[in-house]
Every structure is written in C-alpha cells, then in structure tokens.
C-alpha cells in the first residue's frame, strides 16, 4: 500500500508540527526549571539539557519541512556542534558554581566531593606552611 503524495505530505506536515510544538515546550521547560529550582546547580540541569532535545526536534522539523536531502548534513553539523559545546559550558559554569559555594548544602543528600576537596585544601595548607617555615 503506497499512500499518494497528498496524504504523505499531510503526514510529514503533522509530524513536523508535533516536533515544533514539543521542541518549543522544551524551551518552556528550561524556563520553568530556571524559575522553580532552588539552587544554581539544579537550575543548570533544567537550563542546558532540555535544549539538546529541543534543538534536535526543531532541526528535524526543519529538515522535514524543507524536503531536500542536502539540508540534513548541515542540520547534523549544527546539532553535533551543540552536543560538543553544551557539556563543556555546563561543566565550566557548574564547577565555578561549586567552587564558589553556590549550592545549598541542605539540599544535597550526599556530597562525596566535599571530603576530597577538604583533604586537598588541608594538604595545600600544610605545604604552604612548610614552605613558609623554610
């Protein structure tokens, strides 16, 4: 059974419409997360990650709407650039946030990094004082 061109067109249109609405909803999810989460690091989760799926859906909708095969590589490159850059900037902001004590300790159920950081800080302090002594 081969659908005629008209229904195929309608199906593609419908699919891309769904993609666009869900992609836009992902942006809204990011904004809601920004407003409702209590500290910087949990806001990071809401802010950066849903955009990955959102952009994917929007680019897919674009590819479907344009109906030419040569746009797909460009869209793929744009998405892969996003995939490469998002974790890096999220990590940089997250690390700066952790180091400048931008998180609420009472919201953490466990923090396995804190002990390591304190040990390293104590070690650095000891080395500093032994340097100063000589």
């Amino acid at each position, binding site marked *: 059974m081969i659908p005629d061109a008209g229904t195929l067109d309608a199906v593609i249109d419908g699919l891309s419409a769904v993609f666009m609405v869900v992609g836009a909803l992902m942006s809204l*999810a990011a904004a809601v997360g920004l407003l409702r989460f209590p500290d910087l690091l949990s806001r990071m*989760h809401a802010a950066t990650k849903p955009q990955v799926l959102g952009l994917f859906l929007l680019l897919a909708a674009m590819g479907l709407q344009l109906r030419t095969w040569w*746009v797909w*590589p*460009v869209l793929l*490159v744009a998405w892969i650039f996003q995939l490469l850059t998002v*974790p890096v900037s999220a990590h940089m902001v*997250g690390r700066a946030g952790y180091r400048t004590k931008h998180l609420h300790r009472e919201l*953490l159920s466990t923090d396995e990094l804190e002990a390591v950081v304190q040990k390293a800080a104590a070690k650095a302090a000891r080395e500093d004082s032994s340097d100063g002594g000589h």
Partner: protein
Amino acid sequence: MNRRISLRQELPLLVWLVFVWGALWQDFSPGNLLFGALLAVVVARMFYLPPVEVSGRFNVLYAIPFALGFLGRVAAASFQVMYLAVFRGPYVSNAVVAVPLRSRQDLMVTATGHVISLIPGSLVVEVDRSTSTLYLHGLNVRNAEDAAKLRDDVRAIEARLIRIMGTREELELIRLEAAP
C-alpha cells in the same frame, strides 16, 4: 613529544573536517570533497593539535544501537526533568556522587563525561585525572540507592563506550566483568 602523527590517528579528524566542509557548502560532489580534503590536510598540518590517543578500533555494530539508545535516554530524561521542574520544583534533593571509571585514557574519560552530561539529570562537576574519577551532580538523588543507581548507570555507559572504541585490555576487563 613525538611530532609525527600517523595518518590512522589523524583520519577521524580529517573525515570530520571534510564532512563539515561539504555540509557547509551543501555540495557533496567529488570535486568539492577533494578540495575539502586538501584543505583539511593543510589545516591539520598548520594548526597542529596535540595528538589524541585513539585505540584504533571502532565498532560500528555497537555504535549505532548506542546512538539510538542515547537519543532515547535524552528524550526520556528531558521529560523527567520537565516533570521535576513543574511538580517538585523547590523541594528537589540532589547529591554529588563520585564515580570511579575503569579506563585511564583521557579520551574515554572525556567521552563518558560528555555523554553523561548530555543526559539530563546528571552533570560533571569535577574530574580527577590521576584516578579517573568523575564527580557528578545528580538531580533528584534522594538516598544511597539512587546514588548507587546513578553510579551503575555511568559505569554501564562507560562499558558500552569501551565496547565501541576502547583498547583491547579494557575490552578484556569488560568481558571478565560480564562473564560471571
């Protein structure tokens, strides 16, 4: 440091550069690709990057299911974060979890960190290169079981990445772990 890099090590970079060239011109004709390849070689020679240590194997059979599974996980987790943002909001509880990885290679640690950062709900806060330990910030990690689940998740992702492009020794390690 050895300045000579073998073509085999450079090949992934060159292929990627040629692909970007073709995609940006929106033209995949042989002539354009050839010119792109020429430019890619010139760029790779002139703007010399420290060589990335690749193991030289790449298993497509594992890579394709991994890519599809990754997309599925990203989609599922995006909706989960959305749900948490709307319904749990200010009462969400998080944790910073240490995950020791098996691999000692920079590339593998980076790839694992990247993948785990892209999946919503976890974020790499700090990396210890000497012990290849990732410190993750996990959203909605309420107790020790959740933390253990996150740790197992990350190690499973690393195992799948090793199956795709790890060295033979790491592959043996994975096989031994899976055997009993």
